[in-house]
Structure formats: C-alpha cells, structure tokens
C-alpha cells in the first residue's frame, strides 16, 4: 500500500474510478455527491479524459450508454432523485448487456426529500432500477477505503459480466474524510471488447448494441440467458463482513453507514456481556442469502438496522426462511441513528430473550 491521503468519500470514489481506467465521466450536480463531478472536472482534462456536465441525469446516463458501447470504461454519479431519472437508461444498458458504473450517494426521499444521509433507495437499487426483468451489481461500501476498493471491483465485474454496477453509498460516506490509500492502477488487465461498436473497419460484421426484441420467444430466451449469468454471480460474487458472529446469540444486519454505527453498538453490547455480532453485506445484489440462512439456524434473533423505514429487512427475512425472528430498527428522512439507539435495541432483544 502506498501513501495515505485524507480524502472525502466522494473524492476518493472519483480518484478510484480514474485509477480503475475510467476516462469518461458524465454527471450532473446534486447534493450530496457533487464533489465527484467537481473532482472529475478538475482531473479529467489533465489526463486526456472526458468530463462532461450533461443537461440532465437522463442525458448523462445515456452518454454513459454511448461511451460504454464504444468499449471504454464509463461512469456517472448522482443522488437519489437523480438516480430515479437515470433509471430509464440503466434498464436499456442492462437490456443491451453493456458494462458501466453508476454511483448513488443516497439522500432522504421521496420526492425532493432532503439532503441528509439515507438508505431509502435499497429497493430501487436492488429490485427496481428501471423497467423489466434485470439486476445490476450493487456494492455497499462502509468506509472511504472500501469506496476505493469496491470501485476497482465494480469496474472489473461490470466488464466481466457485461452489466451495470452500482456503488450504493450515502451522504455520510460521501461527505466524510478518512485516510485512504490507492492500490496499483488496474488498467493493465483491460481486455479488448469484441462486442463494442467502435467501427467495423470493414473487417468484421457490424456490431449492434440493442435491447429491442419484438419476438416474445426471442426476448424470453435472451432474458433467461441473462438470468443464468445472474445465477453464476449469486454463487461467486457475494461479499460480506462477518463480525463476532461465531458465538453470537444475536446478529445485527446493517450495511454502509449504519453498519459502522451498529458496530459501535455491538462492541458496547459485548462489554455488557450480550453475545451479539454483526453481519454486514458488502454486496446488496447479490445478497448474502446463504450466510444469513446459516446464521438464522444459530442465533435467537436478528436485528436489521437501516436509515429507512425497512427495506433490506425484507431480504433478511427471506434469507432466514422463518428460522429466527427478524426485528427492525430504522431512522429515516436524513436522521442518522446513534450507536446508543442501536445499543438500546440490542439490549431490548436480549431482555426479551430473558438474558
């Protein structure tokens, strides 16, 4: 590892994307992620890259579709309301099997909502980022260093599976500064993309990037093929952090910013003698279903903590298949839960169990 920098999460995301070989960024200002655009606008011209401030989020994601179709690593970033606008383009990109990276630094919604941190777009990211049957890779970093590490991975996996990848962060991670170091640039393993529309040079048949298949049988077949790919991803690409769960009677499940708050609470609860651990998904799709299923057979109860009214909790319940009760604690609208609040919830869990 090289030199450490004290960097804002948003800026670290931007620098990591550049070091992952991204030379084409299309953005639009929105709090709390604007530092990404500002950083890109400063750096890209100096390294021969493209920074373009689009006329809208809609245009930005479609510029990504164009650039990524040409075979380059392309990225856009936004926050919740802007991601809603991008959803049309994401659906087309997924339906056309084009890789790209999208950053979502979540803020409170619905509507214009607020600008403080939130995790209320879990459903949007993992279930319904646009119309039709499709999934995107969703990475949920919990520190500035992890924002960097997962950015490299997002580009690699997006290329490998030819599908969009999202970094799902929140205003807290985007705005905070932590020491960070950057791994070696990983642009050397960039492979030629034979499917790219970069001109036939009259040496091959035309490549077509397209999501339109009017024949239902053909469309069904193409979707089924894509879902076979999704099955492989579910098997190979799940990432999570497993913290103090070995002997745990209780497990807190949280991702991103709330996982850090929950970790503080777990540490405090351990000091009080409560056997509690933390399971932190680093990929939200694919979701650590199997790990949670195994834990559900071991623990007495799970507690899901989110900055929302309860979204990921659904996936936790599905994963546990009714083996253990799953409780929920959430704050929403930009309110960040404190470690003390979460600790109280853990204590309540334990008390109900008569500990």
């Amino acid at each position, binding site marked *: 590892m090289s030199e450490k920098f004290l960097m804002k999460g948003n800026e670290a995301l931007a620098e990591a994307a550049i070091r992952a070989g991204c030379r084409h960024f299309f953005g639009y200002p929105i709090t709390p992620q604007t530092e990404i655009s500002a950083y890109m606008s400063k750096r890209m011209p100096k390294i021969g890259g493209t920074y373009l401030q689009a006329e809208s989020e809609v245009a930005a994601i479609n510029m990504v579709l164009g650039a990524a179709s040409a075979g380059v690593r392309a990225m856009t970033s936004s926050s919740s309301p802007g991601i809603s606008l991008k959803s049309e383009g994401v659906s087309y990109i997924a339906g056309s099997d084009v890789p790209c990276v999208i950053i979502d630094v979540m803020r409170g919604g619905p509507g214009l909502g607020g600008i403080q941190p939130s995790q209320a777009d879990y459903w949007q990211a993992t279930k319904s980022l646009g119309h039709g049957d499709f999934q995107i890779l969703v990475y949920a970093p919990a520190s500035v260093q992890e924002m960097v590490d997962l950015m490299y991975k997002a580009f690699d996996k997006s290329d490998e599976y030819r599908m969009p990848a999202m970094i799902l962060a929140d205003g807290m991670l985007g705005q905070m500064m932590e*020491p960070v170091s950057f791994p070696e640039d990983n642009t050397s393993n960039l492979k030629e993309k034979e499917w790219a529309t970069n001109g036939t040079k009259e040496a091959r048949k035309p490549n077509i990037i397209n999501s339109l298949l009017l024949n239902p049988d053909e469309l069904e077949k193409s979707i089924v093929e894509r879902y076979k790919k999704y099955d492989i991803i579910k098997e190979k690409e799940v990432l999570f952090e497993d913290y103090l769960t070995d002997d745990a009677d209780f497990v807190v499940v949280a991702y991103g910013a709330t996982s850090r708050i929950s970790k503080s609470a777990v540490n405090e609860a351990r000091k009080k003698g409560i056997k509690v651990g933390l399971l932190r998904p680093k990929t939200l799709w694919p979701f650590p279903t199997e790990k949670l299923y195994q834990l559900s057979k071991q623990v007495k109860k799970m507690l899901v903590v989110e900055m929302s009214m309860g979204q990921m909790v659904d996936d936790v319940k599905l994963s546990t298949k009714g083996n253990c009760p799953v409780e929920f604690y959430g704050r929403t609208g930009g309110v960040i839960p404190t470690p003390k609040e979460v600790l109280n919830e853990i204590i309540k869990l334990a008390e109900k169990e008569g500990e």
Partner: protein
Amino acid sequence: MTNMLFAGFGGQGILFAGKITANAGMSYNKQVSWLPSYGPEMRGGTANCSVCIDDEPISCPLVSEPDILVVMNKPSYHKFENSIVEGGTLVYDSSLIENDEPRNDINVYGIPATSLAESEGLNGLANIIMLGFTLQKTNFLPYDVVSKAIEKSVPKSKEHLLKPNLKALEIGFNYK
C-alpha cells in the same frame, strides 16, 4: 480514543479546524475520521464536524457524545453542551458565548478567541486559536504534530496564510 466535535457558524473555519485535527491524527499514525454537517447554506448557517482519533479502526464516525466539544457560537453551545460525556471537556469562545448553564461534571475552558484574533491582526483565525487552546488543555496530540499538519494543509497558492495560522496556534496554546 478521542471523539471531538467542532461547532460554530459557517465561515468561522470550523470544518478547517477539524480537518487539521484529522490530518494531524493521521500523520501521527492514528486512525481518524472527519465528518461534516452539510446544508444548503454556504456561509452563515451553523456548521459542525465530528473528528475521531483512535488506535483502533473507527467504527462510528458520527460523534453524538463528544469527549471534547470545541464551540464557537451560542446556538451550538446550547445544542451540544449536554451531549459531552462525563469527565469530558468543553472549550468555548468566551468572546461570543456566555457560559450560562455550566456543568460541573466536565472540564470547562473559555478563551476569547475571536477578540484575540482581532487584536492580534489574525482576523478569521479564531478557529486555529481555539485549536491551540484545546491542545493546551487536553493534549490530544503533540503540538508539533498539529503545527506540521497546518503546514501540510495550507495550500501552496495560499502560502502567505501559513505564518498567521502558525501564530494563531501558538497564541491559543500559550494562552493563560
């Protein structure tokens, strides 16, 4: 482990004082985090930032119960004074804040940082005077580490500001 909260008005350099602190911690091989409040106001609104310095990885970067509160305006003083942990420290700018509801379970130190800055010709550097004074009272990091962090944090384009910043730190550190 030191959890610090810097609070005041936007434009007082609250976030910058926090950044210096985090940078200093990092250069001293500590784990650090810096988390600002952010809002629609660029200047004039309240601003605060959480800074954590620890030997262990920082689990929660949001400081809701500070060990040290460095506060530079009345609204923030009233908002955060009660959140300081027992045995913790309150450092306030006594030229702007009356300590009218003193707690007796914490250490309380006042310094007229804003008036000092004005009289010393260091307009806008009350934040660094506060930082120096906090350092004197709590010793959360060695003085040299913090002054080096200032040297690193003042951009080349604003090099003329370096000396005044270092002077402000010294004034705060030596204030009796």
